[in-house]
C-alpha cells in the first residue's frame, strides 16, 4: 500500500514537471504577445519592448525555460504578468474555493445518485424507475448554463430567496452546488442504476432472497457493495467533469474559483498564472485518482493482494 502511494507521488512530481514543460512550449507556439496585451492594443512599440525586458520576455526561450523551472523547483511559481502578484498567492485561495464548490457538488451528486440509482434498480421497469430515468435524461441533456441561469432568475430575481453571486454565506452555496451537483447526479444515476441491475441479477442475491433477507438489506448492503467497483471508477472520472463544469458554474454564479481564473489567464496569455492553474488542477486530478485506487482496494480486498 505504502509502495503504491510513494510510486504515485513520484509519478506526480514527474508528471507535473513534464506538464509544465509542455505548457511552456505550447504557450510559446501559439500566437499572441503577452507584453502587447499588458501594454494595450495601441501602445507604442518602445513601451511594449520595455515591458518585455522588465518581465524577462525578451530572453531566449531556453533561458526563460530554465529560469522558470529552477524557480518552480524552489517552490516559486513567479508573478502573474497582469496583476504582478505571486502566482501561489492567487492560485491558493482560488483552488480552495473551487474545491469547496466541487466537493459539495460531488457529495450531493454521489448521495443523490446512489439513492436514486438503487431505487431505480429496485423498482426496475416500474413507474418510479421510469420517473428517475426521465429525471436523469433531462439532467444529462440540459447544460448547466441553462439550469444555472433559470435558477438565478427564478430563485434570485423573482422569489429573492437566494443570493446570486459570490460565496460569502451558506446561502450562496445553494444554487451553484445544486446546479453542478444535480447535473452530475443525473449521469451518475444512470451508471448506478445499470451497475445495480447487474448486481441484483446475480446468483447470490437470489440466494439471499430465498433465505428471506429483507429487500432493503439485499439492495443496500449486498447489492450496492458489489456494484461499487465500477461506481467508484465513475465517480473518480466524474470529478474531472465536475472541475470542468465548475469553470462554467463559476462564471454564472460569479464564484471566485480556479476554473474562471484559468480561462481568463489563457485569454490574456498570462503564462505564469496559466501554468500555476493547470499545474494545480492536474495535481488535484492525480491525487483524486490515487484516492480512487485506494478506495478500490478497500472495496475489493482481492486487489490489495495482487
Amino acid at each position, binding site marked *: 500500500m505504502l509502495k503504491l502511494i510513494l510510486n504515485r507521488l513520484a509519478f506526480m512530481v514527474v508528471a507535473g514537471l513534464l506538464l509544465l514543460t509542455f505548457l511552456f512550449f505550447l504557450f510559446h507556439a*501559439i*500566437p*499572441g*504577445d503577452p507584453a*502587447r*496585451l*499588458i*501594454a*494595450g*492594443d*495601441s*501602445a*507604442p*512599440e*518602445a*513601451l*511594449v519592448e*520595455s*515591458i518585455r525586458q522588465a518581465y524577462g520576455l525578451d530572453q531566449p526561450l531556453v533561458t526563460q525555460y530554465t529560469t522558470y523551472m529552477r524557480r518552480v523547483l524552489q517552490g516559486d511559481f513567479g*508573478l502573474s504578468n*497582469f*496583476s*504582478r*502578484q505571486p502566482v501561489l498567492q*492567487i492560485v491558493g*485561495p*482560488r483552488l480552495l474555493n473551487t474545491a469547496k464548490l466541487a466537493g459539495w457538488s460531488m457529495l450531493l451528486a454521489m448521495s443523490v445518485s446512489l439513492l436514486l440509482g438503487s431505487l431505480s434498480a429496485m423498482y426496475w421497469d416500474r413507474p418510479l424507475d421510469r420517473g428517475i430515468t426521465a429525471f436523469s435524461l433531462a439532467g444529462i441533456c440540459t447544460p448547466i448554463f441553462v439550469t444555472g*441561469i433559470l435558477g*438565478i*432568475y427564478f430563485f*434570485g*430575481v423573482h422569489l*429573492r430567496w437566494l*443570493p*446570486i*453571486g*459570490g460565496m460569502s454565506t451558506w446561502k450562496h452555496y445553494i444554487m451553484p452546488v445544486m446546479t453542478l451537483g444535480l447535473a452530475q447526479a443525473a449521469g451518475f444515476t444512470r451508471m448506478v442504476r445499470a451497475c445495480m441491475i447487474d448486481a441484483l441479477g446475480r446468483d447470490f442475491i437470489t440466494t439471499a432472497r430465498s433465505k428471506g433477507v429483507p429487500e432493503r438489506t439485499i439492495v443496500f448492503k449486498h447489492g450496492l457493495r458489489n456494484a461499487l467497483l465500477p461506481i467508484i471508477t465513475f465517480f473518480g472520472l466524474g470529478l474531472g467533469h465536475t472541475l470542468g463544469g465548475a469553470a462554467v458554474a463559476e*462564471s*454564472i*454564479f*460569479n464564484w*471566485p474559483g480556479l476554473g*474562471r*481564473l484559468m480561462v*481568463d489567464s489563457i*485569454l*490574456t*496569455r498570462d503564462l505564469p498564472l496559466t501554468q500555476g492553474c493547470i499545474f494545480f488542477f492536474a495535481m488535484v486530478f492525480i491525487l483524486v485518482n490515487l484516492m480512487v485506487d485506494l478506495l478500490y482496494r478497500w472495496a475489493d480486498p482481492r486487489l490489495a493482494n495482487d
Partner: protein
Amino acid sequence: MRYYARMAAAAALMASAFIPASVGAQDAKPQYGGELVLTGQLDKTMFPGRNTDAGGMDVYLNACENLVTMAADRTMQPALAKSWSLSDDQKTITFQLNEGIQFHDGTPFNAEAVAFVFNEALAKKFLYVSLLEGLEKVVADSEYQVSFKLSKPSAALIPNLAYRTMCIFSPTAYKAVGEEGLGSKIIGTGPFVVDSYVKGEHVRFKRNENYWQKGKPYLDSIRILFVPDVTTRLAMLESGDVDRAQGVPDFDIPRLQSEENLKVSTIPSLQQNYVVINNLKKPFDDPRVRQALNYAVDKAGIVKSVFAGTGATLSQAPTLTPGVFGFADMREPGKNTIFAYDVEKAKDLLKQAGYEDRNGDKVLENAQGEPLSLKLWTRKTGKGEYQIAQLIQAFLEKIGMKVELTVLESATFSASLSLGPQEAKYDLALLAWTVPTADPDEPMMYMTHTKAWKPAGANRMFFSHPETDRLAELAHAEPDQKKRAEYVRLWMAELLKQAPVIYLPTVNLTEAYRTYVHGAQYMPAGTYDATMAWIDKAAKKEQGISR
C-alpha cells in the same frame, strides 16, 4: 398642444442622451451614510501606471485624484492643483497646488510628490507615458508649486493630465511597497480608502475621514464586486444584490426600462468602430477605392441590426466623437452620417479607379482582368464586432468585391495587428479606437500620423499624408483654443477626402442602476465616478432592499 409636449419631451430625452449621465435629482439634498454596491471588472493591477482600462480606473479613482479634472462641458477644472499658467515660450506649465492635503498614509501632498510621480512615470515607462509626449521632467519649485518642462509646446498635456490614470499616488508608499504593493492597495488622496481587496472577487473602500474637501464624501463605503458575466450582473441588479451594473446589452434595455425601481441610461462613448485599411496594399493606396469602401457600408443598417437601434450612434465626424475637443459635425447637408450609404457612388468611384465588372460575373476586375478580392480580419470579442464584420463582408460583396472573412482569437488578433508595414498581412481588419482623454491629440499624432506607423504608434493603416501630418503638428502645439479647434476641423475635412479607414458608428454605453442612487457620473470614457454619490435611504427601504 399634446404634440408639442411630446416633441419637447423627445428633445429633452435626446439632450439627456448626449451629456454625461448625471445620476440624480439635483434638487434633493444629499444624505450621508450607507454602502454603495457596484459591479466592476479589474483584470489587471490596481496600480494606475500599469492599468489604463476603464475597469481599472473605476476602481482606483475612488482613492486616487488628479491635478485637474475635465468637466462635462469639456472645460478643465482644478482638483489637486488650484490653478496653472503657461510660460511665454509655452514650454513650461506651472501648477499651484492646494495646501494641507494628505495621502491616506499620512504623507503630505506637495510639489515633490507630484514631481516624483511623473518623473517615475517617465523613467519606468508607465502605460500612459505616450500621453506625456514632449514632457522632459517635472520640477518642484517650492512646497506647493510644480513645473512641467516640455521639449516643445503641447496643447494636449493639460487635458491629458485629467485622464484618471494620471492620478497622484503616495511616493512614500510606492517606495516602501513598490508597484506590486500599490497594485493591491492604492494609496492616494481621494475620498475613499482601500479597506479590503480580494483579487477576482471584490474591493471595498471606506470613507476617508480626513478628506480635504470638507463634508465629502457622503457614502460610508463603496463595494465593487467583480462580475465578468453580464447576465449574472443584471440578475444581481434586478434582485437588489448590487446597486448598479454596467455594460447592459442593447437587447435587454427595453426589459430593464420597464422595471420601475431601475433607471437605464445610455451615453455615447469615445469609442468608434472602424475598419483598418492597409494603405500600402494595392488597390487600397488609391483614396477613391478607400472612399468607395466607406460608401458601400450601410452604417444605419449596422446600428439597427447589431446594436438594436440604440447601442450605437451614427458617426458625425471621422474618429472624433461629440465629447472630444474640436469635434465638429462633418456630415454632408441632409445626410445622417459621414459617408452615408450610397452603392452607386461606391461603384462609380471604383470605376474611376479602374475597377468594374468586365465579364458579367458580378465581381469587379481591373484592366488586367484581376478580380478585386480582399481579406477582412476580425475577432470574436468587443461589442458585436463579429456581427459587424459579417455585415461588412455582405455589403462589400454586394458591390462586387470578393471578401474572405477570417476570425481570430483575440490575443492572436492583437499580435497580428501589431506588426510593422513589412510583416502586416491584413487588407482590412475590424477594430475600435477610443479617444481616451477626450482630446484629439492622440488620434491626430498617434493614430493617423506618418510617424505613428506600427509598430511605433497605432497607425495600423500605414496611412501617410503630408497635409494631415502638418495639421496634426500645428494642433499639437497650438495653445489658442480657437485656432486649435480650426486645425482639428481642417484635419477632419482632409481625412474625409483621404478616407484612411472605413468609418463606422460610435458605440454607446449603457448602465442600469437602482433609482435611489444619486449623484454618480457615468463618463463618456466609460469610467464611473461614484465618489460623490449618495443613497436615498427611504427609497431604498421602499424597494425592499435591506443590505
